[in-house]
């Protein structure tokens, strides 16, 4: 504990007195590097809670600017940052919350050309993206770089959360070998989404990230947590590694990043 400043001992006191975290766990958090994909509905609580928890390096990648219609759920932004880059708005929030955190704000798209390079600088990836091409890209890049991918996705009143840990469990392609054809599954933009839903799902993702960092508890590997806000119901389903998976199976056929927009038959950007 000797590395902590007095202010840090004060700031993280409620963690440090938890036997499961303690000084050692808090040090691990301060040394950890986590990349949040998207500073939107899921990215907001993920970044807020990881920053509060003292995760020392937070990367955030997003191409978008803050729009008034985001504020119904993307609570890292506010009315004063409408029109600003989401990554800049998020960075400002984090720095105000916790000056311990180093924020890497990456304004742009994650794509096949930059994904490996960006991801390899982090220990854990949190997928809060909003489209299928990016979901598959993130999955494959995490398999190739051996990084755990803490996955969350939402639709209207329902959420899905799981941890894809290369080597230890299934990947996204084991779960969903192919994306739905364009138009088959409406986006949040078309279908709407309850504003608090990403708050619940993103907070669950943040919990899983912290468990992975401090090495405590049972990570949500090989299990899919479903949240139904209307029924107030949580359920868990078993996920298995598919030995025929094209990226993590016994005989992988995809060994480098591909063209994901072509694979999904749709652009990664929601217009």
């Amino acid at each position, binding site marked *: 504990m000797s590395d902590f400043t007095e202010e840090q001992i004060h700031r993280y006191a409620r963690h440090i007195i938890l036997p499961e975290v303690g000084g050692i766990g808090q040090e691990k958090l301060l040394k950890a590097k986590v990349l949040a994909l*998207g500073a*939107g*509905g*899921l*990215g907001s609580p993920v970044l807020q809670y990881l920053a509060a928890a003292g995760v020392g390096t937070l990367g955030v990648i997003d191409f978008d600017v803050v729009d008034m219609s985001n504020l119904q759920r993307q609570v890292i932004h506010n009315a004063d940052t409408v029109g600003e880059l989401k990554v800049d708005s998020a960075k400002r929030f984090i720095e105000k919350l916790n000056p311990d955190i180093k924020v890497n704000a990456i304004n742009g798209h994650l794509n096949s050309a930059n994904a490996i390079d960006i991801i390899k600088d982090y220990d854990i990836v949190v*997928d*809060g*993206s*909003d*489209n*299928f091409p990016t*979901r598959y890209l993130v999955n494959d890049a995490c398999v190739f770089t051996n990084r755990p991918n803490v996955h*969350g*996705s*939402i*639709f*209207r*009143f*329902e959420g*899905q959360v799981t941890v894809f840990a290369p080597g230890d469990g299934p990947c996204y392609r084991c*779960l*969903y*070998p*192919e*994306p*739905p054809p364009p138009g*088959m*599954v*409406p*986006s*949040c933009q078309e*279908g709407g*989404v309850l504003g608090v839903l*990403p708050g619940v799902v993103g907070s669950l993702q943040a919990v899983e990230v912290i468990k992975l960092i401090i090495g405590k508890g049972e990570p949500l590997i090989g299990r*899919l947590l*479903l949240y*139904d806000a*209307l*029924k107030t119901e949580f*359920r*868990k*389903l*078993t*996920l*298995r590694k*598919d030995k025929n998976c094209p990226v993590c199976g016994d005989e992988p056929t995809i060994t480098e990043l591909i063209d994901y927009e072509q694979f999904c038959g749709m652009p990664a950007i929601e217009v």
Partner: protein
Amino acid sequence: MAKVTVRIPTPLQKITGSKGQVDAEGNNVKDMFTNLEKQYPGIWERVYDEKNTLRRFINIYVNEEDIRFLDGENTALKDGDDISVIPAIAGG
């Protein structure tokens, strides 16, 4: 025939008249969807593709297990089984 309950995901609830859970009968999963189609026309083509194979972005679970790791659409059902239809969602 086994009597089971089927959990219908939001995107498919238009077909079931907004019902998130329906009763169904069948000795196996395929049988159950065949019967369900009679009750809720249109559900089959949301779950099966043109070649009558289960769509690869929708998973069917019997209780907590993915039928791809059981007997697929031939997975046998028994009274009281809890069937979940879980499509991929991408929102964030």
